[in-house]
C-alpha cells in the first residue's frame, strides 16, 4: 500500500489560484469517489476540507474545491489568502477496506 503521490510544494500569490494533485491507482483514487482533503497548520491537528471528491463540509470556504479524473484527484484553492499557507493531504479509501494518505503538499503564499 503506497502513499498517494502529491507534489512536495506549490506556491502562489495572494488572490491567485493553485491546484494540488493527488495521484493513486485504480485500487484507491480511481476505484470510487471517496477522496477527501485535509489542511494542517504547523503544530495543529488536520482539518477536514473536502470529502467525496468535491463536497465541502459546513464552514469551509467555497474558495476550496475538489475534482477527480481517472486515478488523479485535485484540490483547487482560489483567491489565495495568507492563512491558506499550510500542508495539504489527500486521503482515499482503498482496497481491503483500508485508507491511504498522500505524502502531503506544502503550500506557500508568496
Amino acid at each position: 500500500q503506497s502513499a498517494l503521490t502529491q507534489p512536495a510544494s506549490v506556491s502562489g500569490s495572494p488572490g491567485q489560484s493553485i491546484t494540488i494533485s493527488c495521484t493513486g491507482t485504480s485500487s484507491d483514487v480511481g476505484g470510487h469517489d471517496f477522496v477527501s482533503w485535509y489542511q494542517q497548520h504547523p503544530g495543529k491537528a488536520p482539518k477536514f476540507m473536502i470529502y467525496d471528491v468535491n463536497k465541502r463540509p459546513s464552514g469551509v470556504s467555497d474558495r476550496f474545491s475538489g475534482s477527480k479524473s481517472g486515478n488523479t484527484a485535485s484540490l483547487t484553492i482560489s483567491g489565495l489568502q495568507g492563512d491558506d499557507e499550510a500542508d495539504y493531504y489527500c486521503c482515499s479509501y482503498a482496497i481491503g477496506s483500508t485508507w491511504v494518505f498522500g505524502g502531503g503538499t506544502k503550500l506557500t503564499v508568496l
Partner: protein
Amino acid sequence: EVQLVQSGAEVKKPGESLRISCKGSGYGFTNYLITWVRQMPGKGLEWMGRIDPSDSSTTYSPSFQGHVTISVDKSITTAYLQWSSLEASDSGLYFCARLFGPQYGSNWIDPWGQGTLVTVSS
C-alpha cells in the same frame, strides 16, 4: 460539541509497552469508526488502522499490522492504540479521529484529536 480528547505525551524506552487513549464525546460513539494516524517528525500523515466501536472489528494498514493493536471500550467511549514492545522508530505524533466509512455512501475523517506525542529513546 463533538470532540476526541487524547491522553498526554509519553516518554518510553525501547522494549517497553505503551497504551495511549482517545475519548470521544458529543456523538453516538458506536455509530462511527475510529481511526489512528501517525505523523513522524517533519513528515506526512500515515493511516495506521481503524476500529468499529460497535463490534470491535479492526482493519490495519499492512505497514502497521502486527506491530500495534487498536482496541476500544465502548462503555467509556474510549479507543486505544497500544504497543507491546516499542522501538525508537515508533517515536512520533499519533492522532485519533472519527471516521465515517463508505458503507453509508460517504467518507470523511472529522474531528481529529489533539495528538499524542510518543518519544522512544534509551
